[in-house]
């Protein structure tokens, strides 16, 4: 067994008064910002490029490259949006770092703002995170008092305001252009891309959208340097020139049927099995894992034979999953019916589809209806064929929808049919009904 990993992003969790600016600074906080302000903005971007940091919000996009997409020499306003909508089932890492160490995130926002020459930052926070909202508001007030925000930050000539903006309980507001529409006061209908937000985003101005955890990584990269960041995680694949590697540590959320659900920080590349056995107390009730979600339900399922898959940016894809996603690992034990599990994911996406693309709106609604029918003991083998058709035709990968929600809806279906088909066939043949209770809306 390897030595215990010394947490970076989670190093201040559980410490007394960890949300106050004084304890944060006593622990070395805001050194990254001071170092950044001593550089030119472009040098800060270069530092982030060199670190090979990839976005933690789900898509794994190279952070520094995204910042480079901003138009050069633009003189109008540039916006930075912080994506704190965190709604992918299984995911709670943004909540924990905000509640336990808000300044680490806020420092990263000012650094990113400086590098991108952003004039205003909008922190889009899901409504459910009321405690985060109050913690952040207090921390932001402390920053203004110390001139880490506001006009001419620490005499650098750079000015920035951060405004908190609360969502209203809709998953699609996490998709970056849905977020922008929602921020603008409209329904959160994702936009057709291109143009990408870096060219035309919030209020039709160049905009960068980054996840909360990504920005916390930026803080540490500026403080400790890009070389340090690259000592952690999985290096680039020398045989694949397009691989950007999986550098840094990752906040892995572990939930479901384990003895110790929770958040752990580990170098990218830990396997699902190691996570479950060494960091989550193993599968509960002495049972075995039947399936494991590698990164939020949109990513699909690993089967019991695939638990040695490394959870880096490439591993889940090699096992037929959509990707690493949010690294939210959900463990499903061998007493659970995959029919119930798949119904739950299909119902989720049917509920959360914004409805503007026909394949997504109809495909998610029908897949939930079909699974419901199967659960009632009224499914047929043809239903499995219909599910298969839906899973192969909706999404940005087949090219039929505007955003990736539909790919996320398709993947659990696809993986369930590939990896657990006999269980579905047996269930349908038996004519059994699901034993799970279901409560429906009154209206």
């Amino acid at each position: 067994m390897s030595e215990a990993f010394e947490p970076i992003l989670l190093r201040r969790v559980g410490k007394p008064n960890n949300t106050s600016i004084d304890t944060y600074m006593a622990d070395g906080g805001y050194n990254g910002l001071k170092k950044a302000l001593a550089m030119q903005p472009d040098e800060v971007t270069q530092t982030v490029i060199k670190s090979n940091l990839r976005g933690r919000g789900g898509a794994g996009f190279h952070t520094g490259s995204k910042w480079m997409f901003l138009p050069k020499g633009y003189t109008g306003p540039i916006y930075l949006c912080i994506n704190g909508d965190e709604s992918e089932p299984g995911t709670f890492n943004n909540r924990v770092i905000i509640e336990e160490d808000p300044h680490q995130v806020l420092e990263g926002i000012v650094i990113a703002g400086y590098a991108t020459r952003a004039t205003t930052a909008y922190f889009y926070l899901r409504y459910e995170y009321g405690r985060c909202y109050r913690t952040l508001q207090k921390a932001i007030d402390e920053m203004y008092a110390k001139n880490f925000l506001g006009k001419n930050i620490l005499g650098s000539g750079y000015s920035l305001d951060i405004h908190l903006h609360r969502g209203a309980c809709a998953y699609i507001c996490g998709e970056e252009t849905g977020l922008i529409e929602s921020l603008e006061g409209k329904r959160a209908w994702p936009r057709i891309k291109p143009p990408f937000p870096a060219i035309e985003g919030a209020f039709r101005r160049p905009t960068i959208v980054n996840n909360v955890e990504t920005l916390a990584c930026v803080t540490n990269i500026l403080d400790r340097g890009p070389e340090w960041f690259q000592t952690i995680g999985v290096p680039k694949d020398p045989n694949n020139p397009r691989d950007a590697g999986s550098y840094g540590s990752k906040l892995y959320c572990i939930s479901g049927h384990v003895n110790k659900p929770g958040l752990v920080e580990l170098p990218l590349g830990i396997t699902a099995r190691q996570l479950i056995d060494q960091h989550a107390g193993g599968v509960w009730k002495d049972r075995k894992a039947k399936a494991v979600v590698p990164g939020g339900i949109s990513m699909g399922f690993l089967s019991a034979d695939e638990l040695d898959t490394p959870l880096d940016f490439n591993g889940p894809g090699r096992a037929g999953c959509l990707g690493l996603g949010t690294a939210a690992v959900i463990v499903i034990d061998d007493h659970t019916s995959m029919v119930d599990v798949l119904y739950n994911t299909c119902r989720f996406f049917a509920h959360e589809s914004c409805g503007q693309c026909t394949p997504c709106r109809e495909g998610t609604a029908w897949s939930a209806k079909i699974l419901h029918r199967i659960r009632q003991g009224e499914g047929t083998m043809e239903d499995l064929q219909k599910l298969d058709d839906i899973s192969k035709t909706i999404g940005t990968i087949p090219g039929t929808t505007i955003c990736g929600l539909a790919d996320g809806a398709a993947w659990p279906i696809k993986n369930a049919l590939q990896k657990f088909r006999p269980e579905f066939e047996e269930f349908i043949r038996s004519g059994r009904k699901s034993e799970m209770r279901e409560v429906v809306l009154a209206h």
Partner: protein
Amino acid sequence: MSVLSEGLRQKIRDHFSRYPNKQAVTLPALHLVQQELKCVPTEAVEEVAELLDLAPAQIFDTLSFYGFFRDEDRPLGKKRVWICRSLPCMLRGGDQLLAEVCEKLHVSPGDTTPNGEVTIELAECLGACDGAPCILIDDELKLNVSVEDVLRLAGEGHE
């Protein structure tokens, strides 16, 4: 008579300087209204529209997209309790919790108890799966809850 008090109007106007246009104040304004009135009545939609220099239809379009807002026919109870039913909570008894709470309170999700105390809602992942099953009361998460906990926290415990 307007439904929005002067205090509430001022709180809405206080948001104007944060955004390049007034339309962006739509969500903050709707939150403020619902917090105070327990719903967003039609008159309030019209008054918010006037404050933000928008057509009422624009406010209504946004409001109706988010299942979060209630019209005057279905105002919220004193407390709003959201019970999570997404996969990690389901795996640890979320559906059972929801079913039992609804049974005990004789309500369906979306309903408010007849005494106006509590509205029960179904939620998708609340971002607290480390404490599944979990609930949200107004905007505070409560982790690892039992049926008794929910009834007590909702002020509906049977002492």
